């Protein structure tokens, strides 16, 4: 899982894929893809015809029949190869995952508490609700929930991220995944998955495509391709009587042969997309995995491309997790340096990010050096949820910083009062989306610290991009509406939900869905689970709780909430690749007609040679060139199928125009020089 960018043609994978593409010639496998099945039948038929021609010496040259036949077989094998390549890339990943699971033993506790008796059993014998102890150096035997203890865990086997993470009981960091390693301390874990159902198992089976089902869009496309195949089948079959009649009517030439008709049929049916279709689907899943997102089904990947509304948590997604001090505003009559000094003092022992940001601000803006805590002989007052303030007691000073009402109580107790000017500053900061902290020294109010939510860099651009994709972004926050509106405006989201409760989230999702929109969201906490379950595309953070992971249909191993944007792009890419190659495949047919029709009826109606605009050498070379082009184009397009058509957020209209020009017009033009080139090669090699 660690190699994020595996080279497209890894020699090991290519070798395996070559073998697999032969193995996939099994008729039962071919039957799953109607387009390629026709080619398969055509290959068998022409091989038979070739044998027959050899043994009876028919008028049609056996070399020509075998030439066509060989390239039809290649067409089938190339399609198999594309699929095998896509699968191979997944398999390599699955293998590395599987290796992390070998020979794990577990210490099963007789009762769920630290220090209870344990016995050693194989990890595969663990069942749900069993309780195990995992100590430093042990591998977590299976998925579970921490019920006691705190430990640092290396999850790189799953996430590829080598920095250890903290796992502890209770809260949103209680889930552990089988295959990860405890680095320090110990954990008591209640098993939440039976063997074969763990996260790792699901991942492996998904990556290997063992449970791959066709997605709704794939089914619809299959129907279209099958319909086109039926039309072309009838076009080719009826050409035989048409040709027989024409020969009788013109009194010259001989009817078109079955070999030529099979060649024409294979060239016309959409083999390019038919051959690459399953590779595209597998590669889509693979791209998700490379982005470190595990989707529970291909359907979820596809749905991601359709998302209309994106719900994003403010904290950690849109803003940096922590607020930062950006400004100090002194009370009337207070020197700014005095305020800075007090603010720094009150924050020296404050290890929260906000506290540290105050010290940084005092140093950078007011040139106050950090002081040695021990020299001050100070007593530090830590923040608590009850007092909602923190600070420091020196010999003669009692410096505090905290929420407005908490400080107001503090100064009042000391015999002072909160100046009206400070109160106005506080309101003003709230309106601008910030958090005010008031600083006081005894009964004297010194001023206000402006803590600001820092919107992550580049968010505005990303939301603009989403808007161009046609996706509406909604920020979810527990803040009051004033603050929320200010941050929403700064971040450039389209809408926000302030003072959000789990119920309000769920309601918002339902409202959008009732309006026919597809909703995506990310979440990590247990209280997100209902909303995750309701959303159409729900990405759970791997760092989140088991409940959240089970409610979502994707898990982001990097626990990066902005990953949703990539997920949407991958979903769109998947559909676009299919659409582009379908268009390309059908547009190709025009040139193939120009190659084959004059060749097929040259003996009956020599005037038709005027349609041979490519001036292909002989009827045989023309037909063979078209068949070879048709086979080779599959191989040429494998990288595109695996990588996917590039998505750009430029609006549907522009995207369609560009893709129509590239794949529609391109598909119309490219085969002309392509077939001509192959024909020239065939002639130069004396093969016709």
């Amino acid at each position, binding site marked *: 899982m660690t190699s994020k960018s595996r080279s497209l043609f890894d020699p090991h994978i290519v070798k395996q894929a070559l073998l697999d593409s032969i193995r996939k010639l099994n008729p039962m496998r071919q039957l799953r893809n109607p387009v390629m099945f026709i080619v398969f039948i055509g290959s068998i038929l022409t091989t038979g015809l070739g044998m027959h021609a050899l043994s009876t010496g028919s008028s049609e040259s056996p070399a020509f029949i075998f030439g066509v036949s060989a390239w039809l077989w290649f067409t089938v094998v190339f399609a198999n190869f594309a699929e095998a390549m896509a699968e191979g890339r997944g398999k390599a990943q699955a293998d590395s995952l599987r290796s992390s699971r070998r020979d794990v033993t577990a210490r099963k506790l007789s009762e769920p508490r630290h220090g209870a008796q344990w016995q050693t059993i194989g990890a595969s014998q663990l069942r749900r609700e069993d309780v195990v102890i995992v100590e430093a150096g042990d591998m977590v035997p299976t998925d579970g929930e921490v019920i006691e203890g705190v430990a640092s865990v290396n999850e790189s086997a799953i996430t590829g991220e080598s920095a250890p993470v903290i796992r502890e009981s209770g809260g949103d960091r209680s889930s552990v995944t089988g295959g990860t390693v405890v680095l320090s301390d110990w954990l008591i874990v209640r098993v939440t998955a039976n063997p074969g159902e763990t996260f790792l198992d699901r991942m492996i089976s998904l990556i290997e495509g063992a449970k791959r089902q066709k997605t709704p869009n794939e089914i619809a496309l299959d129907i279209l391709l099958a319909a086109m195949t039926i039309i072309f089948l009838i076009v080719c079959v009826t050409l035989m009587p048409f040709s027989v009649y024409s020969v009788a009517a013109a009194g010259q030439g001989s009817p078109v042969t079955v070999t030529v008709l099979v060649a024409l049929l294979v060239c016309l049916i959409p083999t390019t997309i038919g051959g690459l279709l399953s590779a595209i689907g597998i590669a889509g899943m693979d791209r998700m995995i490379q982005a470190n997102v595990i989707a529970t089904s291909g359907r979820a990947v596809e749905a991601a491309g359709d998302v209309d509304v994106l719900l994003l948590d403010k904290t950690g997604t849109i803003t940096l997790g922590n607020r930062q001090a950006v400004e100090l505003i002194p009370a009337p009559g207070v020197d700014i340096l005095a305020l800075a000094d007090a603010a720094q003092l009150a924050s020296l022992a404050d290890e929260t990010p906000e506290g540290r940001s105050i010290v940084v601000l005092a140093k950078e803006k007011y040139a106050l050096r950090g002081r040695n805590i021990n020299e001050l002989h100070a007593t530090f007052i830590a923040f608590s949820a009850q007092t909602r303030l923190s600070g420091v007691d020196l010999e003669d000073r009692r410096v505090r910083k905290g929420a407005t009402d908490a400080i107001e109580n503090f100064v009042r107790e000391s015999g002072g009062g909160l100046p009206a000017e400070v109160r106005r500053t506080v309101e003003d900061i709230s309106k601008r989306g910030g958090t005010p902290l008031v600083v006081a020294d005894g009964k004297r109010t010194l001023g206000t610290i402006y803590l600001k939510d820092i919107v992550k860099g580049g968010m505005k651009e990303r939301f603009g991009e989403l808007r161009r994709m046609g996706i509406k972004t909604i920020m979810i926050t527990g803040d009051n509406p004033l603050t929320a509106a200010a941050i929403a405006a700064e971040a450039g989201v389209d809408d926000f939900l302030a003072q959000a409760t789990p119920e309000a989230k769920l309601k918002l999702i339902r409202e959008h869905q009732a309006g026919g929109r597809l909703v995506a969201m990310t979440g990590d906490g247990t209280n997100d689970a209902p909303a995750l379950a309701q959303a159409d595309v729900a990405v759970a953070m791997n760092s989140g709780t088991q409940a959240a992971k089970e409610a979502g249909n994707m898990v982001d191993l990097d626990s990066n909430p902005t990953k949703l944007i990539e997920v949407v792009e991958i979903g769109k890419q998947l559909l676009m690749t299919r659409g582009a190659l379908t268009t390309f495949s059908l547009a190709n047919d025009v040139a193939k007609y120009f190659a084959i029709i004059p060749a097929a009826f040259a003996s009956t109606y020599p005037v038709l040679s005027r349609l041979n605009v490519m001036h292909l050498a002989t009827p045989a070379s023309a037909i063979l060139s078209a068949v070879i082009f048709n086979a080779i184009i599959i191989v040429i397009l494998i990288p595109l199928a695996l990588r996917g058509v590039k998505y750009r957020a430029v609006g549907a*209209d522009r995207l369609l125009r560009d893709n129509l020009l590239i794949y529609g017009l391109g598909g119309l033009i490219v085969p002309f020089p392509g077939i001509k080139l192959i024909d020239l090669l065939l002639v130069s090699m004396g093969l016709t």
Partner: protein
Amino acid sequence: MTANHWIQIFLFVGVLLATVKPLGWFMSRVFQGQPCGLDRVLGPIERLFYRLAGVDPKSEMRWKSYAFAVMLFSVLGFAFVYLILRLQDRLPLNPQGFSANTPDSAFNTAVSFATNTNWQGYGGETTMSYLSQMLALSVQNFVSAATGIAVLIAVIRGFTRRSVETIGNFWVDLTRSTVYVLLPLSIVLALALVSQGVVQNFQPYQSVALVQPISMDEPVIGAGGTPSVDAEGNAITQKKVISEQQLPMGPAASQIAIKQLGTNGGGYFNVNSAHPYENPTPMSNFLQVLSILLIPGALCWTFGDMVGDRLQGWAILIAMLVIFVPLVIGVVGAEQSGVPSQIAMGVDEVASDMQSGGNMEGKELRFGIVNSGIWAAATTAASNGSVNSMHDSYTPLGGLVPMWLMQLGEVVFGGVGSGLYGMLMFAIVAVFVAGLMVGRTPEYLGKKIEAYEMKMAALVILIPPLVVLIGTAVAVSGLGLDYASGEDVKGNLNNPGAHGYSEVLYAFSSAGNNNGSAFAGLTANEPFYNSALGIAMWISRFWLMIPVLAIAGSLARKKYTPAGAGTLPTHNTLFVVLLVGAVLLVGALTFVPALALGPIVEHLQMTAM
């Protein structure tokens, strides 16, 4: 092509476009049950029908009941026509004393009129009594057209309705199409045609003396019923002078009006609108060719209005015109270019003030090349099938255009109702592929296009080409050639070689797409063609209607997805290009090989000389 040609083509298209909005608006009101201006007069008639039939106009149908009603009504209509044609010798209004139709001819004609195809294996003035023309054929002209419109309206409801099961009431849609749309327009057009000299009476055929008697050599028939021969084996002939002519009569104008308006096309007389009593003047010609495209064009506007975005309707209409206008120019241009071999012999085929020039074979002098060409394209673009010139005599490319217009699936204007719903099926497929290309599950008019819709739309697009190709293949394999009648591959074909093949292909293209026009030159009133073409017409009418209604039902059940920036717009130039591309690509890919062996090879042979 001369300036006159361009003026006439653009005058035609201009007048057609001018009618789109008023008629489209009117029909939109009619089908949404809103006041349309004629309610005071026609409302009582409409309600009388419901009372007589015991229909509750308020009760709605699910798609299956709707489809069942369509089928039941059409089967009964077919049976009714069949019986009248089989019994016409015993029924009144038969002044010429025509005998009953043969079973295969009656079957073919009954299917033909019930399916809005109006392929005619018979010659009107020599086989049909006035009663058959009026009660059997004209009635079907109205109701088969109304059926097509009704199905279209049901499909439009599928798009506009949200999360419901029903798509309207067939009996109501049928009645309203007939009473409010087809009848008033037909009355106006019939009167206008009578003013131009189209006959409308119940008189027996008239004998009149020829101004210039003509004489001819007639073979002498011997005792055995075979032509007598002399000692050398040459036929013995005798002189015969003809000084009298039979002029057919009948209630023609009333039938011709609905023949054009309902995209039926079944002529009152055998030569259809080339006949001077059916289409006497350039004015009557203009009115008739205009009325061919009148309702199909206006229905696009109705569609846009009913789905709440008129641009959607215009987009489809423009797509139709983008295909239609170049093909009109193509057919007129091909005919005007004339025939190289004739030009090589010194024939002057250049247009001038004194002559129309070009290839005038099979065309009426009073219409000339441009009005024949416009008609040929219009009648095959719409699934009308009436003719004012003989398409069989067109140059190969001139004949290819009408043939290909039919093979496109009769979606460029197409039949009343059926053309637009066929085009909507292409739109669904085009939107599907385009939706994939922009990375979104495709939507059309706010409805998601999923596997079920694709399956049904694919059927609609698939069936006509299959019917055409398989039918032609069976015919040229022998059954349609009648080897027994001669040494060569003529028989039913009046032309040998590639052109004979083109004739068969044209016949099946016409029947397989419910057009009904004939290339002529093919002896089709015999058991094989009567049956095969009858089956082709039936399949391509109803095997399309049923999947189309299934889509209507499925769409009505779906939720509405509002359009966003990621939604593919379906009312702009790009969509028009896409839709045109889809129609042309499917049409070309399917028929290029077949056309290559017919008209294309003929053209290459003609120009190679």
